[in-house]
């Protein structure tokens, strides 16, 4: 556990509970145009947001600029493709040539979150132990579809879990020991198919 303590000392983000709420935009620190800050980041996408979080936790004053809205998902987002048009990145482009290939229509994404809004920003956070599966659990994934040696299967939630289909077309397997996760209520699931 010493190594986990070292990780936590260096980066506590894995142990933080989600703090986002409907009023998060109001509760954030705001600076006036006259204030001097350490850093200005243009773009609140995956890169900009991560840099902002890390540096501000280290004590930097950081201002982020974002051209598009600060979404409030419960109010602004819908579970509907046509209704999600406002999330798509639709800056003007022209396609040309002898046989121009039509571009996609629902490219990710705009607003705070950047292309992360394309999947509603849902990414189950890896636990530090997920990066030490061979050391801790005795196995390592060999590729996208399965594992080579012994497997451990845990299912923390039946909701939105990939089923144990026999074709191996399920999600990328991760073996996560639920007793190591600090947030028991998180609906994470992991299902690993035994590969002979």
């Amino acid at each position, binding site marked *: 556990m010493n190594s986990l303590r070292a990780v936590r000392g260096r980066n506590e983000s894995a142990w933080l509970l989600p703090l986002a709420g409907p009023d998060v935009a109001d509760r954030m620190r705001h600076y006036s145009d006259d204030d001097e800050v350490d850093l200005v980041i243009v773009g609140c996408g995956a890169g900009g947001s991560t840099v902002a979080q890390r540096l501000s936790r280290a004590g930097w004053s950081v201002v982020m600029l974002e051209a598009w809205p600060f979404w409030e998902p419960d109010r602004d987002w819908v579970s*509907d493709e046509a209704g999600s048009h406002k999330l798509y990145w639709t800056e003007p*482009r022209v396609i*040309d040539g002898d046989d121009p290939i039509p571009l996609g229509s629902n490219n990710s994404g705009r607003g705070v979150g950047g292309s992360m809004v394309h999947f509603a920003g849902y990414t189950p956070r890896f636990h530090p132990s997920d990066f030490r599966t061979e050391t801790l659990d005795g196995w390592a994934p060999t590729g996208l579809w399965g594992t080579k040696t012994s497997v451990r299967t845990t299912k923390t939630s*039946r909701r939105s879990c990939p089923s144990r289909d026999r074709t191996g077309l399920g999600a990328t397997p991760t073996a996560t020991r639920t007793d190591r996760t600090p947030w028991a209520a998180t609906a994470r699931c992991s299902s690993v198919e035994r590969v002979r």
Partner: protein
Amino acid sequence: MSLPLPAHDDARRFPGQSSLEQGDHWDEATTALVRSRIDRPPEVTFFTQPEEGIAAALLDRLLGQGGEPRVPLVNFVDARLARGETDGWHYADLPEDGEVWRRSVRHLDEDARERYGVGFADATSAQQDEILTGIMDMQHAWHGLPAGQLWNLWLRYACTAFYSSPYAWDEIGFPGPAYPRGYGNLGIDRRERFEVRDAPPSKAGGGTAARGGTA
């Protein structure tokens, strides 16, 4: 709610499915949006009245909508054009989407009057189809608009509009919005309790309405 299918599809593929019946499981914002599509199709503001009639006829022919109930395609397409809600890109040889729609609608009317002596909206379905088939098969420009690219644009808008309707979802067996309920029975050939087994019209009697469960 079933949309009338073409004659050769003598039975619904997913008999008994109704995505709207699952409305209680959707989040508020999604519910309001989807129900408004059915209850209050947006008012037409981009097209003029004559343009609206031609565009409605065009869209109905593209999606094979011959009778009621029908998805109000022209309302949905018009709303996008009024808001400038394009895909963001356009072909170098085509103008912006809004202008393409206005021009193509005008040319459809011109072609119909020249051929049949009536406007496109007043022509018979067969006459409308003949004009459209001609454009679909064209390798060159039609009234200055590259036919293949125009066809692509028409269909993009038409299909986006059509498949935004819960009635179209029922036709293809798509159960509708999934948040916050989620899915419990993921996997090939597995269905949620509210999904209906595919009953291909080729089966005698139009197939069975088998609901939910595993394969």
